[in-house]
C-alpha cells in the first residue's frame, strides 16, 4: 500500500517536470501537424469541399489520409523524440543524482518515469484524434461545406487509435532503455532514426516484421489490403508484446545494475 502511495507521489512529481518541457510541446505540435496540413490543403481547394463532404465514406477517407503520415512518420518520431526528451530532462539539468537520492525504490523511479512517457504518448494520440475531428469541422463552421451526413464511426476510430498506440510501445520501451543508459541525447535519437529507416526499407522483406520500429507502419498498411506485405510468421500483437516486455525488463535490469547513478 505504501509502495503504491510512493508510486503515485512519484508520478505526480514526474508530471510536474513535464510542464513547459520540450517533450510535452512536441506531443502537442506533432499531433496537430498533419490535421493542420490537411485543413490548410482543404481551405486552399475549398471549391471541392461540398462534394467531398457529401461522400458516404467521408470520415473513413479523412481518417485514412490523416493516419498515413501519422502511422508512417509522426507516431514513430514522436515515440523516439518524446521518450528521449523526457529522460533527457534529468541529464540536461544534472538531476539524476538528486532523483536517485530520493527515498524511492529503483522500480518506482524507473516505472514512474516510464508511465509519464506513456501518458505523453497517449496524450499525443488523443490530441491527434481530436484535431482530426476539428480539422474536419472547421470548413463546416466557415460555411465552406455542409456537415458530413455520414455517421462518425467513433468506435472504429478509437479502436484504430488504441492499435496504433500499442504498436508504438516497443519503440517507446527501446528508446526509454537507451535514454536512461546514455547521457548523450544523440544516442537514442540516432539509433531510433536509423531503426526507423531500417524498418521502412525492410517492409517488403520477409523478415521485416522482426524490426520493432516497423509496427505502427505495418498496422497502417495491414488495414488496407491493397498494400501487399509479407505475412509475419507471428501475429503482430505477439511481437509487439514480446518486444515491449523485453525492452522494458532489460531497461529496468540495466537501470538497477548501474554502478554510478547521477
Amino acid at each position, binding site marked *: 500500500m505504501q509502495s503504491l502511495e*510512493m508510486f503515485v*507521489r*512519484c508520478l*505526480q*512529481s514526474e508530471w*510536474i*517536470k513535464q*510542464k*513547459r*518541457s520540450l517533450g510535452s510541446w512536441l506531443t502537442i505540435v506533432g499531433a496537430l501537424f498533419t490535421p493542420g496540413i490537411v485543413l490548410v490543403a482543404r481551405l486552399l481547394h475549398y471549391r471541392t469541399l461540398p462534394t467531398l463532404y457529401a461522400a458516404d465514406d467521408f470520415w473513413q477517407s479523412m481518417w485514412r489520409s490523416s493516419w498515413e503520415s501519422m502511422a508512417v512518420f509522426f507516431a514513430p518520431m514522436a515515440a523516439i523524440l518524446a521518450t528521449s526528451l523526457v529522460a533527457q*530532462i534529468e541529464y*540536461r*539539468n*544534472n*538531476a*539524476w*543524482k*538528486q*532523483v*536517485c*537520492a*530520493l*527515498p*524511492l*525504490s529503483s522500480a518506482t523511479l524507473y516505472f514512474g518515469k516510464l508511465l509519464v512517457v506513456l501518458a505523453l504518448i497517449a496524450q499525443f494520440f488523443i490530441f491527434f484524434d481530436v484535431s482530426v475531428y476539428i480539422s474536419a469541422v472547421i470548413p463546416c463552421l466557415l460555411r465552406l461545406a455542409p456537415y458530413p451526413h455520414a455517421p462518425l464511426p467513433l468506435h472504429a476510430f478509437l479502436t484504430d487509435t488504441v492499435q496504433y498506440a500499442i504498436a508504438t510501445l516497443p519503440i517507446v520501451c527501446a528508446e526509454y532503455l537507451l535514454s536512461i543508459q546514455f547521457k548523450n541525447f544523440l544516442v537514442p535519437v540516432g539509433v531510433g532514426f536509423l531503426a526507423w529507416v531500417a524498418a521502412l526499407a525492410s517492409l517488403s522483406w520477409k523478415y521485416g516484421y522482426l524490426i520493432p520500429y516497423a509496427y505502427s507502419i505495418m498496422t497502417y498498411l495491414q488495414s488496407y489490403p491493397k498494400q501487399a506485405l509479407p505475412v509475419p510468421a507471428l501475429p503482430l500483437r505477439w511481437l509487439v508484446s514480446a518486444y515491449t516486455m523485453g525492452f522494458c525488463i532489460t531497461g529496468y535490469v540495466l537501470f538497477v545494475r548501474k*554502478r*554510478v*547513478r*547521477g
Partner: protein
Amino acid sequence: MVKPRIYLKTCLQTAHLYHRYAPGREVLTDLNLAVPEGSIYGFVGPNGAGKTTTLRLLLGLLRRQQGAISLFGRDLDSDRIEILRKIGSLIEGPSLYEHLTATENLRVTQMIYRSPRQRLAEVLELVGLSAAREKLVSEFSLGMKQRLAIGVAILHRPALLILDEPTNGLDPNGIVDMRRLLKQLNQEHGTTILVSSHLLSEVERLATHLGIVHHGRLLFQGTLDELRRRRSERTQAWVSTSDDEAALKLIRQLQPLPEAVRIDDGRIRLASWTRGELAVLNRRLVNEGFDVYELGSQAGSLETIFMEMVAPDAIAGDVRSLSAK
C-alpha cells in the same frame, strides 16, 4: 591512520570504507567517518581527495564495494529508503529543472515527501528567494540556483544535510549568506550538517567538527578545538641576529632541534618550534656572542596545519628551496 571514533550519538558512521574506480586505483582507503548528531561536520580535502566519492557512497549513488555505512544507527544497504527520507543533499552543484520556476522545482520534491504546501513559501523565505518564486530557474544566477538547491534539500526538514562544496561559485556575499543559513539550520532546527570543501579557511568558520581527507585517507578527525590545540603546539618562529649566516650554521648544529631556514627578508625562519626550544636557542645564540635583534613566534594557521597534513612533501620542498637560497 585515524581509528574509528565512538560518539555517544553518531548520526553517520562509516567503517573501513574502501572504493576504487579501476583495479589498483584506490579512491578511498579505510575511511572511518563519525559525524556526531547535531554537529556541523566539515569534510575537507584537496580536489580529488575522495570527498565527493564518499558523499556519493553515503547517498547510495555509488555502489559500495567494501566497508560499512550506517546512518541514524541503520545500515544503508538494508534501510536505504527509510534513511534517505531523513536526508537532504546537494552533490556537485545544483540539480534544478531550468524550465520550471523556483516554486515548481520545490513542488517536484514536495510531492515525494508530502511536505505541507505552506512549507514552500517558508523555504523560499529562508533562502531569500521569495521575490523570485515564479521566475524560471534558467533566469537565475548561480548564487540563486545554489540557494534554491539548498531550499530543495531542506524542504522536508531533514535530520541530516549533506552538502558537497555548497559555496562553489558564490560571491563573498553569497558565501556569508550560505554560512549564516547553515548555522541557522543547525542551531535553530538541530539539523546535522555534513559539508565538504577544499578550503579549510571556509569550513573553520562554520564547522564544529572536522574530517581532513587526502588521497582517500582520513588524516584527522575531531573537533575544531582539537585541531586548534594542535595549532598551538606548533609555532612558526623567526630570529634575526648580528650575523645570520653564522647563526644559521649554529642552529643547524643544534640537536635535536628541527631544521631552520634562512628566508629572503634577512631573517631566519624556524619551522614548527616549541616555545621551550626557542628559549634554548636564544640562550645559545647569546652565549655564542650573537646579538639577537629579533626573536618572534606565531601560532601556525589552521591552513598551515592542513597543508602540512595534505602536502608535507610540498612544504618540505618549499623549506628546502628556501634553505638553499
